[in-house]
């Protein structure tokens, strides 16, 4: 017998009575507030930032102000130039030189301050989202889901994307003597730009 069949057979022989353990209905709990305010609070708690426009700002001027030293700014959106387009990046090795990546997220989660990215937003170069030093995420207030329950129920992406990441602030670690460090191995910062 293959290990597969072996394992399944042992499980069948050993399992507790299925009738005694019915599946509860899908949970729909918690705060249903999907406001921008809630999202921003949650995002900031996890170390994310809001890229706030100043008088007369465009995304480009805001990025230039926020990242004055950035040399390679990669755009994954049609409405922003950058210094290079994601379609022109051939490999992760090339993507690793990126200072700032600009992407558009299809939705955010108010409870967590999370934004979602998949291959659809990254031109299938998924590593680009993690190799860049900084990431700027364009997000619309209209696309906020209240919490994790509503998100999994509402968003079709979880059933279609091969790679779907919820990013909640920048990468972080507290593995050295408990000191929280933002900017571990993935992005050093994550900023949200409201559109």
């Amino acid at each position: 017998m293959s290990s597969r069949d072996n394992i399944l057979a042992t499980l069948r022989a050993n399992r507790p009575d299925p009738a005694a353990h019915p599946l509860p209905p899908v949970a729909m709990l918690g705060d249903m507030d999907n406001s921008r305010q809630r999202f921003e609070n949650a995002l900031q708690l996890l170390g994310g930032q809001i890229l706030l426009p100043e008088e007369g700002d465009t995304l480009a001027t805001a990025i230039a102000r926020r990242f004055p030293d950035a040399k390679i700014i990669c755009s994954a959106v049609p409405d922003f130039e950058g210094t290079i387009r994601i379609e022109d990046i051939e490999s992760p090795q090339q993507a690793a030189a990126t200072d700032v990546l600009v992407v558009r997220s299809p939705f955010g989660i108010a409870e967590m301050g999370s934004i979602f990215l998949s291959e659809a937003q990254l031109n299938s170069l998924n590593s680009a989202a993690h190799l860049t030093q900084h990431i700027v995420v364009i997000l619309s207030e209209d696309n906020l889901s209240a919490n994790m329950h509503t998100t999994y129920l509402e968003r079709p992406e979880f059933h279609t994307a091969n790679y779907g990441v919820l990013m909640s602030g920048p990468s972080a670690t507290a593995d050295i003597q408990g000191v929280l460090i933002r900017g571990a191995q993935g992005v050093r910062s994550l900023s949200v730009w409201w559109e």
Partner: protein
Amino acid sequence: MKVKPVNHAKAAEEFLEDAPHLTFHDERLWDMRQKRDQQMHLLPEWQDLRTRASEIKEHTLANLPEYLEQFEANAKKNGIHVHWAKDGEEHNRIVAEILEQHGAKTLIKSKSMVTEECDMRAYLQPRGVTVTETDLGERIQQLDDQLPSHIVVPAVHKLVPDVARIFAKNYNTDPNDNSPQSLAEAQRMAARPVILTSDAGMTGGNFLVAETGTFVVCTNEGNADLSATVPNLHIATLGIERLVPRMADLGVFVRLLSRSALGSPITQYTTHFRGPQKGGEMHIILVDNGRSTRLGMEEFWTSLKCIRCGACMNTCPVYRRSGGLSYGAVYSGPIGAIIDPTFNERKYSTLPFASTMNGSCTNVCPVKINIHEQLYKWRRVLAEHHELPFVKREIMHMAGKLMGQPKLYRTAINGTEVALSTLPRFVLYNWLNPWGKHRELPHPVKQTFHSWYKQNRLKKDKAQ
């Protein structure tokens, strides 16, 4: 050769001798517990979430074969190669074969307790594969040649100078660097080139979703996503108990996991892998390694509900004061003490006794595993299977007999010589001796309650 039981008490005693490490360890983990409490207080539905999580897991475990088949079918449909491993040996062999097919000599990986269970690095290394842990804590442990001491924060028992020493040796950094920031940066700088040139990537995973064939990885450092997306070959290893039926069930678990673990609402990265990336290949290995047998243990099968959040370890007053390494096992703390004996009953026979059974672990567990009750039940099982030290067993036997005979008991209490039928006195005293090592004995009293009662109540009754 007979396996020797882990001497937790002795290892713990050594751990306790180092005051700076002990104090930090206890306070850091207690702080994580406090942060978990704060998150709990923010969610009025917390207990409801725990109940749901427990019910979903119990249901899934009772229907595991069907859900595994469903998962497999969906994953295959999405282009994932699905493998089954009955034990660690088979798991490691599968990994080696996949790597060989691709001529892969370097493997970067994120944290996975299952690969620790399988002792995978030790298997691959001599076969010419260089395995690099990319999680900071796990990497520190790899470089120091130690098991992770905690399932969420693997190097929590170390202080900055320890890390500085290890990094100086391996990364040529300043051995006196006392800044966690610059040490973390050193890890980033050392890991990047390895990640960018690695032949294959490996991750663990937190959940399998039967409905979609998805697996979910929850991490903070970004290293798991890098390991999974930079190389074109991604191998994921997960225990078969990691399943949930529906995508929507993840809502319950994601809301509980990081809050219970670290006291943060969610991990920085919650990644859903449903199929290979463009141009890439994806493998998933479903590992049994004792789980299917455990499912048949009436008193212990619910330990399979565990989502590896580590909350039981953070709250455990014994764990905090003995350190994860003192358990001498891949899994330490309360959850370790109830699952380790399923891997090796003799070797881990001491672990269910490394607890006061105070029950705090059960209360924090997000999937409501009755951990402290299972500790109690394990003690019984181990005694029945003759896995208790001889002296302890004899003392309990003797005490049990004595307690059944009030006259004999009274004579013993009153200090008169009693024939201790099974054990000489010095054995008993030797066994009890440790009491006085760090503690005073109770003060002697003039009169027992028994004799006071006789004098003050029984005599009075008669006089009336």
